[in-house]
């Protein structure tokens, strides 16, 4: 018997939350990927670069979580246990490079929920968009992430 999810979460906008890009976090992230690019890891290379500092790898905004809230807010809203969740799709659009010390505001919204049946049975796809802006309101990055729930 498939489980039910709470579809009223469609259209929900989560409270904006701030994130600050930390130098050590960029480096830990790059090293965890095994990506030893000196533009991520070497402060001297970063200082001499067109960006004036090290920059973050393209997928770094995935670390932009709401530290002040329950990070499982979406799953709780859906009424779903984490063991049923898979990452289906992910997209980043980057309008400028992320450098240490910058503080951004993230706004997440649930933009779509749809169903499909795969090899392993029925699944629900929940699509979230997260807009990342700087303190002047200018767009820095957007993320679109599709969470798959095995029903």
């Amino acid at each position: 018997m498939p489980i039910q999810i709470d579809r009223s979460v469609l259209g929900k906008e989560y409270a904006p939350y701030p994130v600050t890009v930390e130098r050590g976090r960029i480096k830990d992230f790059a090293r965890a990927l095994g990506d030893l690019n000196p533009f991520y890891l070497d402060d001297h290379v970063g200082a001499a670069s067109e960006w004036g500092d090290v920059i973050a790898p393209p997928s770094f905004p995935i670390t932009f979580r709401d530290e002040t809230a329950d990070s499982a807010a979406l799953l709780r809203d859906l009424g779903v246990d984490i063991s049923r969740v898979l990452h289906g799709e992910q997209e980043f659009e980057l309008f400028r490079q992320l450098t240490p010390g910058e503080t951004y505001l993230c706004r997440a919204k649930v933009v779509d929920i749809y169903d499909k049946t795969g090899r392993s049975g029925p699944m629900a796809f929940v699509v979230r968009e997260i807009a990342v802006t700087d303190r002047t309101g200018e767009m820095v990055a957007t993320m679109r992430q599709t969470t798959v729930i095995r029903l």
Partner: protein
Amino acid sequence: MRYGKVYVEDVQVGAEIPWLVKGPLAQIQLTRYAGASGDFNPIHQDDEFARAAGMGGVFAHGMLSMGFVAQVLTDWAGAGTVRRLGVRFAALVRLKDVVTCRGRVLAKTSKDDQHLVDLEVWAENQRGEKVVTGRATLALPSRG
């Protein structure tokens, strides 16, 4: 040569970029990625939990493979060139898997001072099965 810089004039539509081979994946890398990314879903750490969830054992974060795919692009074209990267996680990546990341140029467009290159990107495991598929757009410098 490892960290390339590519000019838009040097890019040929239809050409493949150099491959990037990652792995074989070890549990420690998944644990390290969990710490670095903040994604502590036990399904990537705890084999018993992953089996009980019906997943047949631990598997890698999709985002780890996406990071590999981002790296095949930046190893080729340089850090800071990726404008857009979108992927679908097509199959699970398991411990001991070797992930080969690849890309092929689909189109080039230039408007004013901006030179964009669209690529098809993908990652495959040691059996040739695609585990990630997607598209990327890079902004490249011009020799002009």
